[in-house]
């Protein structure tokens, strides 16, 4: 009798374990599908969803289907925090994907670290995110936002003849985590933690390094700013021939460019932190966009070959799959989350489980020779979770197309820089 009961119990356990093995791998992602960051948030959703669907089509991960749970955080910090808490404590997710923007990423990084989750970050470039001492955070773009200016300096020094270079810079930016971070690098400011303490001293700054005199700086509030013409007029009156516009969203990039055009401010060079999106081109028109420089983490022409479901999956494969699913071309706001998903998939395969500690170990162990391979290129990280040896790409709008102009020695297909920017 006892033997029968024992056998039944063992059989029941076996059945239970079998059922458990077939359970989907749950993944939680809180994204700004509405609110100020919704343009990028929606595209992040597409990037994540495409990747998950492709993995599921190829049989899932470790034999289990992926179940992606996406919640709209309305671009709101409190909502994003509670959604990640819910993913972990109520939905019992196995993995999480990061959200969009430094503003949202900074607070949620503490929640994810507290719960021992691997935190792959698609868009959260502010250096302060990586200096809080959290384990298992991994950034899936080239470098912290504070260092983006090095590529701008590179363009000025390497692509523009000395006599043609601008000499006076106006730097205007949103009072936003990400934009403030880029500004700190360009202006050579000290980066401090919200709780006190210096993270980095970036003096003298990339603009000074490039021989620029900064003649005008201004920042606008994160929300509700509408006086773009006044701002553009002040830029024009400053006499700057390099205009740096560090916007927090593509929408602000459109507003700023349109205002500069309206007041006929004609700098030799216009660099924006946002503006790779098709919405930018539509908002300002091909003529106005001509010559505008934007940094980017991804470009359609870059021949990176990543991995998906254990097979090679190139940047071009990604674009074909994206167009087939959504009917339009992707931009970096979809490519970056796709790369996050690829990296996490490889971590699960590498760890042979969804144990986040083991996945974190695998990701930390990546090297230049044996990286995580994505459509954004190869990734290995330093001990704070920032990628190693990855320069930002600088792209330029030329005749309605986003051309890749810097760095010039990493890939083929680099276009010549249009300089100076044509007058409006």
């Amino acid at each position: 009798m006892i033997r029968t009961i024992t056998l039944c119990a063992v059989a029941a356990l076996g059945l239970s374990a079998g059922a458990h093995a077939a359970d989907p791998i749950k993944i939680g992602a809180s994204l700004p599908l509405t609110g100020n960051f919704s343009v990028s948030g929606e595209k992040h959703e597409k990037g994540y969803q495409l990747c998950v669907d492709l993995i599921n089509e190829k049989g899932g991960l470790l034999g289990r289907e992926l179940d992606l749970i996406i919640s709209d955080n309305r671009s709101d910090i409190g909502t994003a925090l509670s959604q990640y808490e819910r993913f972990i404590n109520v939905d019992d997710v196995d993995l999480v994907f990061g959200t969009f923007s430094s503003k949202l990423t900074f607070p949620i990084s503490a929640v994810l670290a507290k719960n021992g989750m691997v935190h792959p970050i698609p868009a959260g470039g502010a250096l302060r995110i990586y200096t809080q001492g959290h384990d298992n955070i991994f950034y899936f773009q080239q470098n912290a936002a504070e260092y983006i200016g090095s590529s701008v300096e590179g363009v000025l020094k390497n692509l523009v003849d000395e006599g043609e270079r601008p000499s006076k810079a106006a730097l205007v930016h949103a009072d936003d985590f990400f934009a403030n971070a880029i500004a700190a690098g360009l202006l050579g400011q000290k980066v401090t933690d919200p709780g006190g303490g210096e993270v980095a001293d970036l003096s003298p700054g990339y603009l000074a390094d490039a021989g620029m005199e900064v003649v005008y700086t201004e920042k606008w509030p994160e929300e509700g700013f509408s006086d773009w013409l006044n701002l553009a007029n002040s830029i024009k009156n400053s006499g700057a021939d390099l205009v740096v516009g560090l916007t927090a969203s593509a929408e602000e990039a459109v507003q700023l460019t349109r205002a500069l055009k309206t007041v006929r401010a004609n700098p030799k060079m216009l660099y924006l932190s946002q503006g790779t999106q098709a919405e930018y081109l539509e908002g300002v028109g091909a003529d106005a966009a001509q010559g505008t420089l934007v940094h980017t983490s991804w470009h359609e022409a870059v021949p990176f070959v990543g991995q998906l479901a254990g097979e090679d999956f190139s940047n071009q494969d990604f674009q074909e799959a994206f167009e087939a699913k959504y009917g339009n071309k992707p931009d970096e706001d979809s490519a970056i989350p796709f790369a996050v998903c690829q990296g996490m998939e490889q971590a699960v395969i590498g760890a042979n489980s969804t144990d986040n500690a083991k996945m974190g170990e695998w990701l930390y162990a990546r090297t230049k020779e044996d990286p995580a391979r994505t459509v954004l290129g190869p990734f290995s990280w330093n001990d704070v979770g920032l990628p190693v040896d990855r320069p930002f790409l600088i792209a330029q709008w030329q005749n309605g197309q986003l051309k890749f102009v810097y760095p010039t020695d990493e890939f083929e297909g680099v276009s010549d820089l249009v300089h100076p920017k044509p007058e409006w």
Partner: protein
Amino acid sequence: MGHTLQILILGLCLGGVYALMACGLSLVFGVMRIVNLAHPSLIIAGAFISYWCFTLFGIDPILSLPISAAILFVIGLILYKLVFEKEARSAKYSEMTVLLTFAVAMVVDGALGAMFSNTQRVTSPDYATDAFFFGTIFLPKGQLYAGLISIAIIIGLVAFLRYTRLGYAIRATSQNRAAAELLGVNVNFVSLISFGIGVGLAGAAGSLVSFVFSFFPAKHWEWIAILMSLVVLGGMGSVQGTVIGAFLLAVISAFVGAYAGATWSTMTFFVALFVILLVRPQGLFGEKPEHV
């Protein structure tokens, strides 16, 4: 001097657009005591109509303004019938409508997002990024046209309120709903039409906004505080007060932006709202609330 004049011009142009954006809100509050928090989301709906008219059929947003206004007018009538009419006699009507209009704002936001996606849009007729230049002074054509059209619409509205029978009835209802009803005014019909006009004005403002600012469904959350500050400054329910409040605050914020920094220009509206509620809660042209 030239710099000061330029800032004044930019402030006045922006003020014209703000005035039209806010006066529908003011009218609806004046007649029905509805604090319509959904008003900016309906402006966005109007902006989307003009955007698609421009994108699909090449219709200039100024020409599609009557279309937006008419469609939103009808939506206003439907909204009033569905959401507000039943509770019009409730003692807590104003308080209830705050919650109701908040819900309507969220529904409109979600519906626009579902229909048009949450992507930013902006209408781009040539004049939107062009200007008249007079030496160092410029007049931005987009804001100038939007401001002038706004003023023309507001003058038309004021004339309608002042010189038509329905206008009399609307003003009477606005001043004393019970007395108007006693004198034979069909206050329910007046409320219905007033709400329709208020929402129609949102549609008209949306057409103009579509080439002045970029927009997306959730953008209305940024506008509600600004519009409320204009209405409160002018006096809740006073269309003329709202117009003056809009020009005043737009000009002040332009000067604040130019001399104290862009961060503070937006703050101007909130500081004004705070100060006016403290010092003169009825606003510049509003009536002092009666104490019972």
